[in-house]
C-alpha cells in the first residue's frame, strides 16, 4: 500500500514538473495585476450595488407608506363631506342618493362580521381536524397526497370560489332553507370558510409537527391514547401557532372580496339575519369601482374611508397574530 503510494508520488512529480515547464511562459498573478489596472469599474459596481439593492428593499416599505398615505389623504377628503360621527354611528349606509345620502359604516361592518363568523365556524373545526389528522394520525404517504391537494385548494383564485358559491352552494342551500334569498350571507360565508381552511390546516399542522416527539412519547408511554396525546399534549403545546393561524385565517376572511361581491348581494343592513342579502366593506368598494362614479365625488372618496376601516381591521388581526407567535413562542 505504501509502496504503491510512493509510486504515485513519483508519477505525480513528473507530471507536475512537465506542466510547470510547459506553461511557464505566463504568470497568472501578473495577468491578474494587469487586468486590475485596466478596469477599476468593477470597484464601482461593488460600491453601488448595496445601495441599489437597498432601494429595491425600500420599495416594499414605500408600498406600505403609499397605502397608508393614500388611505389617510383620501379619507380626510371624505370627512370634509361627511362627519366622523356620522361615519361611525349612523345606522344606514346609502350613499347613492343625490340629495341626502347616508354614510354610516356599521351596516357594512355588520355584513363583513356575519360572513367572517360563518367562515370561522366552518373553517376552524375542519382546519384543526385536518391539522390533527395530518400531524398525528396520517401515514407518510397519506400526508404526501393530502398536503399538495390542500395547496391546490389554497391556490384556487377567489373568483372561482365566488362562482362556486353563487351557482352551486346557494342553490343547494335554497333547497334546504326555502327562505334563503339568492344573495345572502350564509353561502359566501361557508365558501370563504372552505377557502381559508387549507391555510388554517397547514399553519396549524406546522405548529403541531414542531412539537417534539419526545413529548408525545412521554405521554404514550404512560398509556395515553393517541387522541389524548393530540388533545392534551400536542394541542396545548402548539396552541400559539394554532391561534395565530386562526387569526390570520379570519384576517383573510375579512379582506376577501370576490366571493362576497359575487354571492353576497349589495344591500347593506344592520340585521343579524344571515339568509338575506348583505353588503360587506369589500363588496361596497367593488360596487363603486364598477359603476361610473365621478372622480372627486363623496362616493368616490367613501371607498377610501371604507378601505381604511378594512385596512385597520386586517392590520390589527395581523399584528395580533404576530404578537401571539412571538409572545407565546414555545421553547422546546
Amino acid at each position, binding site marked *: 500500500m505504501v509502496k504503491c*503510494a510512493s509510486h*504515485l*508520488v513519483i508519477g*505525480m*512529480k513528473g*507530471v*507536475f514538473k*512537465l*506542466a*510547470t515547464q*510547459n*506553461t511557464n511562459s*505566463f*504568470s*497568472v*498573478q501578473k*495577468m*491578474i495585476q494587469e*487586468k*486590475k489596472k*485596466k*478596469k477599476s469599474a468593477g470597484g464601482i459596481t461593488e460600491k453601488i450595488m448595496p445601495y441599489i439593492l437597498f432601494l429595491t428593499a425600500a420599495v416594499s416599505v414605500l408600498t406600505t407608506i403609499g397605502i397608508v398615505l393614500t388611505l389617510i389623504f383620501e379619507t380626510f377628503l371624505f370627512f370634509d363631506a361627511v362627519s366622523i360621527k356620522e361615519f361611525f354611528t349612523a345606522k344606514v349606509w346609502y350613499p347613492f342618493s343625490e340629495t341626502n345620502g347616508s354614510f354610516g359604516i356599521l351596516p357594512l361592518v355588520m355584513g363583513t362580521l356575519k360572513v367572517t363568523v360563518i367562515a370561522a365556524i366552518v373553517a376552524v373545526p375542519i382546519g384543526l381536524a385536518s391539522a390533527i389528522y395530518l400531524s398525528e394520525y396520517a401515514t407518510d404517504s397519506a400526508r404526501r397526497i393530502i398536503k399538495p391537494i390542500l395547496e391546490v385548494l389554497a391556490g384556487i383564485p377567489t373568483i372561482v370560489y365566488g362562482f362556486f358559491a353563487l351557482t352551486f352552494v346557494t342553490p343547494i342551500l335554497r333547497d334546504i332553507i326555502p327562505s334563503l334569498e339568492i344573495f345572502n350571507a350564509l353561502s359566501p360565508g361557508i365558501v370563504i370558510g372552505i377557502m381559508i381552511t387549507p391555510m388554517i390546516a397547514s399553519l396549524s399542522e406546522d405548529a403541531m409537527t414542531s412539537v417534539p416527539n419526545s413529548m408525545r412519547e412521554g405521554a404514550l408511554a404512560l398509556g395515553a391514547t393517541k387522541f389524548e396525546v393530540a388533545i392534551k399534549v400536542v394541542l396545548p403545546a402548539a396552541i400559539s401557532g394554532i391561534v395565530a393561524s386562526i387569526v390570520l385565517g379570519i384576517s383573510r376572511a375579512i379582506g376577501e372580496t370576490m366571493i362576497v361581491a359575487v354571492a353576497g348581494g349589495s344591500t347593506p343592513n344592520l340585521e343579524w339575519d344571515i339568509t338575506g342579502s348583505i353588503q360587506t366593506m369589500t363588496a361596497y368598494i367593488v360596487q363603486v369601482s364598477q359603476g361610473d362614479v365621478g372622480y372627486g365625488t363623496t362616493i368616490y372618496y367613501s371607498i377610501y374611508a371604507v378601505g381604511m376601516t378594512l385596512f385597520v381591521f386586517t392590520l390589527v388581526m395581523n399584528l395580533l397574530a404576530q404578537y401571539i407567535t412571538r409572545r407565546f413562542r414555545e421553547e422546546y
Partner: protein
Amino acid sequence: METSTAAAKVVNPQEKKIVYKTSDLDLWYGDNQALKKINLDIMENEVTAIIGPSGCGKSTYIKTLNRMIELVPGVRTSGEILYRGKNILDKSYQVEELRTKVGMVFQKPNPFPKSIYENVAYGPKIHGIRDKKILDQIVEKSLRGAAIWDEVKDRLNQNAYGLSGGQQQRLCIARCLAIEPDVILMDEPTSALDPISTLKVEELVQELKKEFSIIIVTHNMQQAARISKKTAFFLNGEVVEFSETNKIFSTPADKRTEDYITGRFG
C-alpha cells in the same frame, strides 16, 4: 516560547524570507478572547503546521491570515500581521488582493455546483482572465498540479459533485492553484477524507511546498509530523511552542506540549 523561537533561528539560518510575521495578535469574538498575544514568524516555501485541541484558536488564526475571519460578525482584532512586510489587518489593505495572493483550502471539500472546468477557471475568471486558450492552459496546469488531472481530464464538463470526497478536495486545491497564490492556507484539509485520500493530499502538499508556502491546521499530530517543517502548538488561544517539527515531537520544551503529543488530553 522565546527560547524555542531562538532555537529555531539557530537551526535554520536566515536564507529564506518571512512571509507572515504576526506580532501581538489578539482576537475577540464579542467578549470572548479567542487569540492571545500571538507571535509567529512563518517562512516561505516550507510547510508550517498548526496543532492543538479543538477550540484552541488554530482555525481562528489561519482564517485571520486571509481575513476570512471577518465573515464572523462581532470579531475584533489588535496587533498586526505583516504579510510580505505589509500589515494586512490595516483596513486599507484590500482583502480581495490579499486573498488573490493567499489561497485557502477548507475543512470540508467545497466545490461550486458547477463543472470541474468551471470550478478551476472560477478564480482566473473573476480576476478578469477571459481568454479561452489561456484558461484551458490554467485549468490543465492546476489540475495537474493538484494531481487530479488524469482522473478528470475526460470529464471536465461534468458537475464537480460527481467526484468522490478526496477528488473534490484535490479539485479545491486545484481551484486554489489556478490563481498561482503565494501562500496556501489549509484548514484541516483532510479531516473529512478517508485514509487513502488523506495520503494523496499529504503527498500533494509535499509537492506543493516547492513552489508555495503552506500553512496547515491539523488536529492529527501524525500528519503534522509527517509533512511539516515547523509546528506551532496552540492551546487556549496562545502559542505554547513553535519550533522545528522534529524537535517538538521528540524533545518538546513545554510540559503542556508533551502532554498533548503524548495523548494526555485533547
